[in-house]
Structure formats: structure tokens, C-alpha cells
């Protein structure tokens, strides 16, 4: 049975000032109320997550003098999933003088997002991007440099200028270590209290405001409550709903899903990004997929055999029997088309039976020309660690034979709805980084997530949280009954999971759910597939709650229990994702509805009916849709074309 849903009142961002777009952030900063330094010390801010967004936010709030409590589920804040980002970070520095500007980055991001993002937010992101690079360099982030000692840049999918700063293939690692070190400095200074190996399992809402969280100490199993004046969620994306994704194994939706059930609206859950360059699946036991940075598309050429069923080795297929399909279909952008387009093109050629490797689910990414043109050394300098990683996983040497790649789930543009201040629909609950829905519309451009996470954490949130906390005198006391109820809910769920004692592991359910989502709500969605998913998910969820086997007990380290709790939340999220995808009958960005395509098979938007953010409110009777209409004052809405 399909989940029943209703349409509620429209929703609106009331925080972005009006006036010329280039002045809005300055205006907001000036309007934002300040907290005097003596009071800051008395105000507690909880930051859940220590990735680029949470790490930078916690460090900065600590520097400003707030009492910060920071949480992550790993054993050290340095291990947040941001560490895995490879390719780079965008910034409108225009150091190359190639015509880049804040306005162009803004324009590219709005267009790349297929006109489903808010102009004010995106403009601010582009503005702040330049400060991020300054900040990172000052912290000692070792970006790639040219011989003159200045910063090097590269170009990335969806852009015709070179604005991506990078640190070999480890940009995320280096930026995160910068934020982590700033955070550790604040921990040493006593402004930040760090709680590693703690998983947030509930938000405490009292008097209509977010006032704390309930966490499980993953080592002792103890359930703890932590109270605060504001709560910031920086818990990353929910791509692991697909089980197989490029995300770290622990990435989850639990934190934002619990917040959703406590009143925070969930925006555009169906917007998922499928990354075109990942290492294909090798077998049933596969536990995750590995991304090959898309910077590889700068020099690698994507191709498949022209003939279906051609099973010769790549070296045996002559030039004129190869189809460099991206260069053929999109001559202007070639191998650098945005991710959604590259991914779907790969799916199409594989669907035609021209895919390569096991199961025909792969395409070649070939460096032979680059090696001939630049020399092996130059290619090694640029991509050495990626080539090594590929060889380690597949046992094949990409200097000699083309890589095989296939799309995989990578990023989620959807997330909790936030206003210009990054505040959710629960007062005092702020959401930053990949966990919110804010800046990327229906498709994120490469190298823009790192930019957004750090923009949110270093520059935006510290200002807007201050404005909220300036009114803290009126917050009142936290009602202990609300705290007790939140703790009890956590306790009950754990007991319930442990008591089923069925015959299937949580992972086996997760795999099945992931497969279902990939087949029915993946790269291509149809009315029929989504209805099937919406029928199957509740059945599977019911089986889960009746037949899952979670070993051990609530006390002590119990990794199987952690996983089971996350899977339980993924079921609920999966259902909302499918519903959102079903209701949005247009195609846009990463959301491709087969029913809505033009004669060339490109995504066809329906601006008349769908130029809005779909913000879903949770209710026991079924989700309620609140629409935030999107207005484009600066960038004219056009059908995207990368031809």
C-alpha cells in the first residue's frame, strides 16, 4: 500500500534579506544580533558531527567563546567521512584570470543544480568560497602549488573555468585535518568538550526548541543526555540507504531522521547524486563502492565498444570501433559533463549491451592518450594515488589497461530543510553540510560539497547561531519530562531490536533494501518502479522488525546493534525518498523520471509545476508536503544543455 500523504501550507525562507543579491549576506551579518563575550561562556552549543561542516563549526564556535560539545561516532574526529573526498574544492578566486568571478560560480551552481536551489544561499556560498581558501592556507593545508609558489587549480565537471583547488587526490583529508587541528586546539583550550564513539539517537525538543540530544556511548552502551541552548547537526549524507555507495560504512540517516520525527522538515529527499566514476561491483560480498575522483575525467577518455557484446580485450579494439560517447554526444563539454549526465550516459550504453567487465556493468576510462601526450610521469604526479588505489582493488594496472568504471551512489542533495540562517523548522536546531538540503538544488557540481561544508561551518553558522542565541533569555528551563521521554524512546528502541531474535542479520536486510532502492529509485525512476518500491519497503520493514537477529546486549561495544539501529531508520527514509520521487513527475538534475525526457533522452524539467523545494513534515498519519516556491531573479531558468 502506498503511503498516503497530504499537501500543507506553503513554506518560505524569511531570513534572507531582500535587495541586491551581492549585498544580502552583508546585510544579514549586520542585522544579526550579537552575543556579548561574557554571555557566550554561559551558552552551550551541541555540534553533532566532526566532518568539514561540524569540525569547522565546533572549532569556530569555540574560538568565539561558546561552550561547545562535539560528538562523532568514530574514535577520533579526524575520521569523519569528509576525509575521503579526493578531487578538490571550488572557490571563485579567479587566480588564473580565466574569467571566473563570484557571479560565475553562483551562476554555474544554480544552473548545475538544475534550477532547484535558492539563489540567495548559492550567491552567499560563492562569496564565502574565497575566504575558505585563505583560511585553509593559513592553517597549513598543503594545497598543490605551481613552481612560482602560487596555488594550482584544475577544472572540474560542469565548469569551463579552472577554479578547483586541490591537494593531490586527498583534498578532503587535508581540509579536514585543518579543521580537526583547529578543533583539537579548542579542545586543549577547554572551549570544546569532545565526545568520540558516541552516537546521537534522539533530539530533545522542549518548549518548542531544540534543547539537547540523547546519545549512546558506543563503548559502554550507556544512554546519556546532553542539554544545550542550540543544537547543530552536521551528520553528513544518507547515501548508505542504498547499502552500496561511496560513503563510509558508518554514514547514516539516524540523526537527521530523528530530528525529522521531532518536527524538522525533510527537503527533497529524492535528490540523490550518482557518481559516474566508481570501481564496478565485483561480487555478492561487496561492502562498499570506491570512487575514482572525477578529476580523472580531465585527462581520461570514456569509451565503450561500438558493437554490442564485443568481448575483446580493450587493447584489441581498434580506435574506429570504439565509441567515445561523451565526446560524441556532448562536444562542448565532452568528458567533463556534469555527473548526472555522465552517469546516465553510462547506464544507457550498458543497457544497450555495450558495457564492459563482469556483468557488462562498466565503461572504460582510458589514459592512453594522456600518457602519450603528457608522459607517464606527469600522469603519475597528478593521479598516482588514484591509480594505485584502483590497482589495489581490482588487481589491474591502469597505466597499461583502461580503468573500468560504473556509476555509484555518492551524495545526497536532499536533507533537512533550513532557512538562510541554516536553521531547520525546529527553532534552535541548525543543520549544516551534507545533512541539509541547501545549496545544490537537484544536482551538486564536483568540488562544491567541501566548499559548502566549510562555508557553513567556518563562516555562516557562527554568525547565524549568534543571532538565535542572543534571544536565549526567553528560552526558559528544559522540561525534564521531555528529556525523560527522549531517553525512554531510545531505550525502548534498543530493547526492541535486541528482543526480536529472528533469523536474518541487519546487514542482509540493508542489502535487500539497498538493492530495491537502486533498482526502483536509482538512476532512473518511473511511476511503476516507485509504486513497487513503496509497496515492498513496508513489507521488508515489517519483516525486519519481526525477524532481525541482533546479538549481544545493550551494554558494552555492540557493533551489530549500532548497524541494526541505522538500518531501521533507513527503512523510513527510503519510503519518504520514493514518495518524493513519485510525486515529482518531472526530471531534474539527479532525479530522472523516465516519463519526463526530451527527444534526445535528456532530463526534462517542468518548471510550471515543480519549481519548488518539497519540504516534508512528518506526521503519524503520513507525510505532509509543504512547498517552498523558488524564484529566479538573477539566473534565467533555461533547460540545461551541455552539448
Amino acid at each position: 500500500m502506498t503511503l498516503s500523504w497530504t499537501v500543507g501550507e506553503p513554506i518560505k525562507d524569511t531570513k534572507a534579506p531582500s535587495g541586491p543579491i551581492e549585498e544580502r549576506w552583508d546585510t544579514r551579518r549586520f542585522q544579526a544580533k550579537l552575543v556579548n563575550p561574557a554571555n557566550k561562556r554561559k551558552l552551550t552549543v551541541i555540534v553533532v558531527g566532526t566532518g568539514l561542516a561540524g569540525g569547522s563549526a565546533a572549532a569556530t564556535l569555540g574560538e568565539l567563546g561558546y561552550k561547545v560539545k562535539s560528538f562523532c561516532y568514530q574514535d577520533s574526529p579526524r575520521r569523519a567521512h569528509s576525509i575521503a573526498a579526493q578531487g578538490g574544492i571550488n572557490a571563485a578566486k579567479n587566480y588564473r584570470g580565466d574569467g571566473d568571478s563570484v557571479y560565475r560560480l553562483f551562476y554555474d551552481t544554480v544552473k548545475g543544480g538544475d534550477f532547484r536551489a535558492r539563489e540567495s544561499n548559492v550567491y552567499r556560498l560563492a562569496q564565502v568560497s574565497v575566504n575558505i581558501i585563505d583560511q585553509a592556507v593559513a592553517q597549513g593545508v598543503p594545497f598543490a602549488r605551481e613552481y612560482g609558489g602560487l596555488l594550482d587549480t584544475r577544472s572540474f565537471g560542469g565548469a569551463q573555468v579552472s577554479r578547483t583547488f586541490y591537494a593531490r587526490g586527498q583534498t578532503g583529508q587535508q581540509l579536514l585535518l585543518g579543521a580537526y587541528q583547529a578543533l583539537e586546539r579548542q579542545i586543549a583550550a577547554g572551549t570544546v568538550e569532545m565526545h568520540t564513539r558516541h552516537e546521537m539517537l534522539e533530539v530533545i525538543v522542549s518548549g518548542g526548541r531544540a534543547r539537547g540530544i540523547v546519545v549512546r556511548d558506543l563503548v559502554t552502551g550507556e544512554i546519556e543526555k546532553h542539554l544545550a541552548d542550540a543544537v547543530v547537526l552536521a551528520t553528513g549524507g544518507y547515501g548508505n540507504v542504498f547499502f552500496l555507495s561511496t560513503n563510509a560504512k558508518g554514514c547514516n540517516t539516524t540523526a537527521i531522521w530523528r530530528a525529522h520525527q521531532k518536527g524538522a522538515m525533510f527537503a527533497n529527499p529524492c535528490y540523490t547524486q550518482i557518481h559516474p566514476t566508481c570501481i564496478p561491483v565485483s561480487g555478492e560480498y561487496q561492502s562498499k563502492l570506491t570512487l575514482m575522483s572525477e578529476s580523472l575525467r580531465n585527462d581520461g577518455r570514456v569509451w565503450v565498444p561500438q558493437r554490442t557484446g564485443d568481448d575483446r580485450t580493450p587493447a584489441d579494439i581498434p580506435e574506429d570501433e570504439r565509441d567515445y560517447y561523451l565526446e560524441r554526444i556532448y562536444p562542448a563539454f565532452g568528458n567533463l559533463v556534469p555527473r548526472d549526465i555522465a552517469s546516465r550516459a553510462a547506464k544507457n550504453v550498458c543497457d544497450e549491451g555495450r558495457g564492459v567487465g563482469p556483468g557488462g556493468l562498466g565503461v572504460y576510462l582510458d589514459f592512453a592518450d594522456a600518457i602519450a601526450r603528457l608522459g607517464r610521469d606527469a600522469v603519475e604526479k597528478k593521479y598516482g594515488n588514484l591509480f594505485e588505489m584502483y590497482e589495489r582493488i581490482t588487481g589491474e594496472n591502469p597505466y597499461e589497461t583502461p580503468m573500468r568504471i560504473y556509476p555509484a551512489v555518492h551524495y545526497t542533495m536532499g536533507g533537512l530543510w533550513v532557512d538562510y540562517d541554516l536553521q531547520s523548522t525546529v527553532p534552535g536546531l541548525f543543520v549544516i553540510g551534507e545533512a541539509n538540503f541547501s545549496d545544490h538544488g537537484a544536482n551538486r557540481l564536483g568540488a562544491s560539497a567541501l566548499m559548502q561544508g566549510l562555508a557553513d561551518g567556518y563562516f555562516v553558522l557562527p554568525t547565524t547561531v549568534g543571532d538565535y542565541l542572543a534571544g536565549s533569555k526567553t528560552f526558559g528551563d528544559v522540561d525534564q519530562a521531555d528529556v525523560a521521554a527522549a531517553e525512554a524512546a531510545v531505550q525502548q528502541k534498543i530493547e526492541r531490536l535486541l528482543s526480536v531474535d529472528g533469523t536474518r542479520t541487519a546487514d542482509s536486510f540493508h542489502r535487500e533494501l539497498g538493492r530495491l532502492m537502486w533498482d526502483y529509485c536509482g538512476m532512473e525512476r518511473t511511476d511503476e518502479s516507485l509504486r513497487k518500491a513503496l509497496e515492498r519497503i513496508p513489507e521488508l520493514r515489517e519483516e525486519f522488525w519481526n525477524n532481525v537477529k541482533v546479538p549481544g546486549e545493550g551494554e558494552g561495544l555492540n557493533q551489530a546493534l549500532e548497524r541494526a539501529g541505522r538500518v531501521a531508520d533507513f527503512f523510513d527514509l527510503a519510503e519518504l525518498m520514493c514518495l518524493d520521487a513519485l510525486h515529482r513527475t518531472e526530471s531534474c538534475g539527479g532525479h530522472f523520471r523516465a516519463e519526463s525526457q526530451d527527444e534526445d533522452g535528456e532530463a526534462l524539467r517542468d518548471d510550471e509545476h515543480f519549481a519548488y523545494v518539497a519540504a516534508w513534515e512528518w506526521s503519524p498519519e503520513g507525510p505532509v508536503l509543504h512547498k517552498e516556491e523558488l524564484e529566479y531573479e538573477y539566473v534565467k531558468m533555461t533547460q540545461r544543455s551541455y552539448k
Partner: protein
Amino acid sequence: MNLTLKIWRQNGSSDRGRMVTYEVQDVSPDMSFLEMLDVLNERLILEGDDPVAFDHDCREGICGMCGMVINGVAHGEQRATTTCQLHMRHFEDGATVTIEPWRAAPFPVVKDLVVDRSAFDRIIQAGGFISVPAGSAPDAHAVPVPKDDADAAFDAATCIGCGACVAACPNGSASLFTAAKITHLGLLPQGQPERASRAKAMVEQMDAEGFGGCTNTGECTAVCPKGIPLDAIARMNADYIKTAAK
């Protein structure tokens, strides 16, 4: 292929711990080492046994969360490879594989193969940073950095904080880890103002955590998945001696 696994099982820091033998069948050569353990754990759960606890997250060799001593070698015999990036094609059918946690007093065992590495965070807290509050930075191009310095700083900065160097060191020294950070920041112009105080504070914290001293055995670099070179330690010592002499 089929393997015999001898795995260290220890239920919390107060348990004495022991090796337990498990047989695993039908291991595919394309599996990663951790996927092989996943398969074992799925079976243990269904059989009503306690699955083997081990740390992991990214499974792509960058977060530094995973780490086991495999056949006596931290992260296994494959060079420059984290446990999660180790694949079963490097093992022979019928082999016996021993799997143990990092063993070092400053890394107490939490459970089975999971250890507490928070001492590393405290070493960073002591001085592994450049003090620059958000928003106070000058333009990124204000200070050019010679490419060679930037590249060398990057190489040192690739340390993932896994702790293999400590596990491999006969003295249980954290010198390679600490030196990697001191080298990274000390090679950059931005890192100069705090260079002396940094080395002093970090080395002292390292000692306070109970890590052993460095006697140049080189076991650390041999297992380091990121190939952090031994000369980082010489650099750390030089920086440290300079401050101590002051």
C-alpha cells in the same frame, strides 16, 4: 579459497583475552580482508555467537580507522596498504592467518581488535596546529610557498593516524606519527611562528602518554600505509633539540 583464522578475542580491557580459531570457506580473491571478516561475522551472528569487533569506516585507506596485526605485521604484509585495502588475492588457499589488535600500552584494547587511540588526539592537542581563528586569514596568495616545500609538507601530511607505526615499533614509540605532523607544519611558512613550541609540546605529550622512545629500528616506516619516511623523525628531533637548548 578456504582459510583458517586465528583471531584475538577479548571482552573489554579487564578480560585477559585469547586466540580463537575459525574456519572460513569460499573466500573470493577479489574480496577485501574486511569483507572476508564481514562474511565470518554474518555467520557468527546467525549461529548465536558474538561477532568479532573491529574498527573500520571509509574502507578506502584514508580515514585511518581500521588496523589489525595480520600474521604478525601491522596492516599485513602488503606494503603501503591499510587493512581495509588489503585484498584476499594475496593469500593462499588453505593458509592460516592470525589476526590481532595493535598492541601498545597507550592503546588499551576496547574489545577484540578495537583499541583506544585517543592518545594520538592528545598529541595533536598539545601543538599539532597553526593558531589561526576563522576569518582572520590573509589572502591565500599573500605568502607564496616554494613548490618543493609544499609537496614535502603534503607528503608528511598524508599520515592517516592509524597507529600502525606504534604497533610495529618494538619500543611502542609514536615518533613517526608525531614527527609527520611536526614536519608537515614545520615545512610551511605559516607554521614557523609556533614551530619551536610545537615540537616541544608534542614530544612531551608523546612521552606523557607512555609511548616509548625511538631507537631507529625503522619498523614504523616499513608498515606505514602512507610511506611516511624515517627522516621525519630526524627533523622532529632537530626541532626539539633546538627548543630544549633555548
